């Protein structure tokens, strides 16, 4: 929620903190709050009156406006069509700071527009930094003093943005509530706005009446009739307040209802009473044959899920969400039906969801407001309407069949220290709860605490304990350490999965993680789509509607993704697959851990996966025909699938059920690699530019280590070589048992730049440099 710092200053006269300090105090004690936009008008911008409007001699869409500040007349070029002679408008002389379309400051220069000199300009709201509206010049109320600086009427403000947690929406969705919260934290007082109390409901003779269908959905409905309203522009202070909080001023009546919501948190709505079908105002569920055009001009088809305000049983507004178009307050409106009602959260949540329409009002009702405040908001709105529009209050009606009082809560004050793990004296707790407007009755050993009506979230002892800790600042609680106990071993299945991961990485495979959603096209291709599967009601896309029954299709998707840049891929994944069936932890669904491996780009891919499987089997002590393979497969991928994936080299796969393997294991898992304490690798961003590949075959003396060769390649390759893939070793000394024989190694080098597409010349030059260095430093032979 957006909070005006200036408004808080008006409500807390002792507010000595800066906006940033207020944000910090609220963040540490209440909810996360940051400093948002700052509003500041250049004081050079002046109130002027339009004296004369002439066509621009060289442009149809421009006019020459002569304006006066009461002292001198100035002629400027103006493109807006909404001004008339006599209007009061803002004028920025050259040298003033205004906002451009991106919200950046710019300093206005004297200019000639289509041959006409223009010393300054008339301003739209956007140019003043007061919103995005750029449709025309900001027309000021007629009583604005001519020649004064606009910043006198629209003073600077800083907006705070608070992320109010849902439990605090009831008391903190208006400036008054926020001021009370802040005052409790700062131990200062709030200057509450005073409005005349309303006459008792139904006291005056009236033919208006209320007919509320359901007291669960509408616990309270307060309404008032006001006559002799004069609808016009709001005074600038009121417009400024709305503009700073991102609400567009409409007219004084609508602006007052918005202002009262921003102040009290209670939404209110004004109807043009003369346009209502009749004097019986009701609230009921809509029927599926009804339609309503709302204030935004959209015709809404209603259902029984929508709660509507009716007049003589005809829908005139969406209760708690938006008013109706037919009863909108307009400049000719003179009589108003003013509504401040309380609707239950489920009723508004359902109605807003059905319509797909959320408004400032519906968000507040959805989280819950207390019914006590409808009448306070009605009184406040009526007072402002009388003061600012000349309206006369004639009738007040109030439906409130079950007057609600917050029930008292029993608190054992010493519990506060127990929960905090830190001593908070009962005196401090008493003070904290009092500052939060609770009434406290001390009894032997316990207190009876009655929270204020707007704190709907305070319902039990633990809520009060939280409040007492909150006001001390939870950050001040010192850390304690749990009593030491002996370490617990990880469950066997986790140990085995980690051991398998370590084994596969040692064998040169790279681990991948994929979504639990099965890629439909690949699943169909790989035949897993024939398996019975479990579907999502609201998938990300129709292609991903099933939960995966096998890992293979996702791994094939990885292979396809990488194939352009990686000729050789050795991937594995350990993940959960889903099958319908009984015996799982959740009824009807069996989840199992699978292991899948894909090898592509090796001539002997099939032998490699067979070998990998053999290593897993050996490590776990499984039988060769272990049932872990029963739901999987080992071997070469069918050529037709391969050709569909456009992969020419052999591709072999392995998939097995690891849970079954763990259950059948006859060995203990090897101990894991200890967690590395080295600083973690820092990720380098992936280039958008295409890579270039070069192979490098090197013959070196038997005693030269492969790492040394690789280090030289990486050192010389530095910024251009992004990957060095060792793909072949022939250690003749080892194989032929002759220590004199040389060692042959082959690398696949990937050249790529983060900044540009590499040219062949560039790559060749660097490659030759690597070759030269290997020759020089290692006396290596390079096979061309």
């Amino acid at each position, binding site marked *: 929620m957006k909070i005006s710092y200036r408004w808080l200053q008006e409500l807390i006269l002792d507010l000595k903190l800066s906006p940033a300090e207020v944000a910090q105090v609220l963040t540490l004690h209440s909810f996360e709050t940051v400093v948002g936009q700052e509003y500041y008008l250049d004081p050079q911008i002046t109130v002027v009156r339009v004296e004369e409007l002439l066509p621009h001699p060289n442009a149809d869409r421009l006019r020459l406006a002569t304006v006066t500040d009461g002292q001198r007349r100035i002629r400027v070029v103006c493109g807006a069509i909404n001004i008339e002679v006599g209007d009061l408008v803002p004028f920025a002389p050259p040298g003033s700071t205004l906002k451009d379309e991106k919200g950046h400051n710019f300093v206005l220069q004297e200019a000639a527009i289509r041959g006409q000199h223009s010393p300054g300009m008339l301003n739209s709201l956007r140019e003043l930094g007061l919103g995005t509206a750029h449709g025309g010049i900001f027309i000021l109320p007629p009583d604005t003093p001519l020649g004064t600086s606009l910043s006198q009427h629209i003073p600077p403000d800083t907006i705070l943005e608070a992320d109010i947690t849902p*439990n605090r929406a009831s008391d903190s969705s208006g400036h008054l509530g926020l001021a009370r919260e802040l005052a409790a934290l700062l131990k200062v007082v709030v200057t509450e706005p005073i409005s005349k109390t309303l006459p008792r409901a139904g006291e005056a003779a009236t033919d208006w009446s209320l007919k509320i269908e359901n007291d669960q959905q509408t616990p309270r409905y307060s309404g008032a009739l006001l006559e002799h309203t004069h609808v016009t522009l709001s005074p600038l202070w009121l417009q400024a307040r709305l503009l700073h909080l991102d609400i567009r001023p409409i007219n004084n009546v609508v602006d007052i209802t918005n202002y009262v919501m921003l102040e009290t948190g209670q939404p209110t709505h004004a109807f043009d009473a003369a346009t209502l079908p009749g004097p019986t105002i009701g609230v009921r569920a809509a029927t599926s044959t009804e339609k309503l055009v709302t204030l935004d001009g959209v015709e809404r088809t209603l259902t029984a899920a929508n709660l509507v305000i009716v007049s003589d049983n005809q829908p005139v507004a969406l209760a708690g969400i938006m008013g109706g178009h037919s009863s909108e307050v307009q400049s000719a409106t003179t009589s108003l039906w003013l509504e401040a009602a309380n609707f239950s959260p489920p009723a508004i949540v359902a109605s807003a969801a059905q319509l797909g329409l959320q408004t400032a009002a519906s968000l507040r009702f959805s989280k819950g407001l207390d019914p006590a405040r409808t009448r306070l908001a009605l009184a406040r709105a009526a007072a402002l309407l009388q003061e600012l529009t000349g309206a006369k209050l004639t009738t007040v009606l109030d439906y409130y069949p079950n007057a609600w009082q917050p029930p008292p809560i029993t608190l054992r004050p010493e519990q506060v220290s127990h929960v905090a793990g830190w001593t908070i004296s009962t005196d401090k707790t008493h003070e904290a709860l009092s500052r939060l407007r609770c009434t406290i009755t001390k009894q032997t050993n316990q207190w009876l605490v009655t929270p204020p009506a707007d704190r709907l979230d305070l319902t039990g002892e633990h809520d009060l304990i939280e409040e007492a800790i909150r006001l001390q600042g939870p950050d001040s609680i010192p850390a304690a350490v749990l009593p030491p106990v002996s*370490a617990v071993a990880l469950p066997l299945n986790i140990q085995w999965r980690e051991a398998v991961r370590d084994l596969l*990485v040692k064998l040169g495979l790279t681990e991948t993680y994929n979504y639990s959603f099965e890629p439909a096209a690949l699943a169909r291709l790989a035949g897993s789509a024939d398996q019975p599967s479990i579907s999502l009601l609201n998938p990300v896309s129709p292609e991903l509607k099933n939960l995966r029954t096998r890992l293979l299709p996702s791994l094939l998707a990885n292979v396809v993704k990488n194939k352009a840049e990686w000729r050789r891929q050795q991937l594995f994944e350990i993940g959960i697959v889903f099958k319908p069936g009984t015996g799982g932890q959740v009824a*009807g669904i069996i989840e199992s851990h699978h292991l899948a491996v894909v090898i592509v780009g090796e001539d002997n891919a099939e*032998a490699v996966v067979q070998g990998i499987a*053999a290593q897993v089997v050996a490590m776990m002590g499984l039988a060769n025909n272990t049932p872990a393979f029963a739901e999987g*497969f080992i071997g070469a991928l069918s050529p037709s699938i391969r050709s569909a994936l456009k992969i020419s080299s052999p591709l072999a796969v392995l998939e097995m059920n690891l849970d079954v393997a763990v259950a059948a294991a006859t060995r203990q898992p090897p101990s894991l690699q200890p967690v590395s304490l080295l600083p973690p690798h820092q990720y380098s961003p992936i280039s958008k530019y295409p890579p270039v590949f070069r192979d490098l075959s090197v013959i070196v003396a038997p005693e030269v280590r492969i790492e040394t060769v690789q280090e030289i390649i990486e050192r010389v390759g530095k910024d251009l070589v992004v990957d060095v893939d060792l793909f072949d070793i022939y250690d003749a000394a080892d194989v032929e048992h002759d220590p004199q024989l040389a060692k042959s190694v082959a690398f696949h080098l990937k050249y790529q730049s983060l900044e540009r597409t590499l040219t062949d010349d560039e790559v060749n030059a660097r490659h030759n440099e690597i070759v030269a260095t290997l020759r020089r430093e290692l006396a290596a032979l390079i096979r061309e």
Partner: protein
Amino acid sequence: MTALSSDDLTKLQHKADHSLAQVTTSRQLEEWRVTYIGRKGLVPKLLRTVKDLPAKKRRLLGQQANELRSRLEQQYQLKQAVLRRDRDAVPLPVKQAVPLTKLSGMPQPGHLHPLTITLRAIQDIFASLGFMVVEGPLVEEPEYNFDLLNIPPQHPTRAETDTFYLTDGHILRTQTSAMQVRVVREQQLSPPFRLLFPGRVFRAERTDATHETTFYQFEGLVVASAISVADLKGTIEVFYSRFFNKAAQVRLRPSYFPFVEPGYEVDLQCVFCTGKGCRICKHTGWLEVMGAGMVHPVVLRNMNIDPEAYSGFAFGGAVDRLAMLQHSIDDIRLFWSGSLDFLKQFS
């Protein structure tokens, strides 16, 4: 004609996906090709309208439309292959017994996924602090994920815009907190106990650099007599100190989670600038790293534990977030990209 929008592209994609799913013969497939990606098909037609858009939209929509075209072409080829496979009846990957042949081995070690590396560190640290690590189902009953955690029926997180629902009424768990009541009930645990629940969770939301439909969480639950907020703070500090291998300082800020009270947001003093303010902590000096709080009495009762006799704390953080901090990864979607350019950077 109204201006082209991303929504139109999404709708067209859904329509194409849907009708492709109905295709069972080569002839139908050819009709599908002509309708969508043929020279006069819907997608090329749409691509031709892109040039009339304002420059700002043109770039984005042009790119999206091109992606749509290549995706549909790829799907077309796959479907073609599927139809051919069905016709040829080529057997699927061979099933056979494992011959224990000697593996020559790849010459270089491969790479663990960064989330594995981070998860391992988290599990190791908590196991050493006496936490029992327990895993649980990804498909969950709404009861454990919401109701038993004191989350009211109309709570917004239950909406289809946040939670994946299965056709049978189950959900994909949105939080490892679902494990709290499940494990204590299933294993009939009585205090004192210390539990850690690591694992995959799901959110039905749009993805961007910091949001994913799928990520990993780790959740701690400690219940014993006289457990306090001070214990919570101390435990979290010990964890982060070991995880980042330097003295960590945390800050508790009031927040709201229905299953804890008091509830807190846990901020870790930025480990990169020691609180001075840097790019990573957005110059606040603090990193938001987990939610935590004292287990709500209602939740304790749901575990069949007497809240008068015992108290507890719970905390939950995202593994992905820690991995991103550790490795300076700037986009959460990279974990799920399957891209070797990314995966080969870690070990």
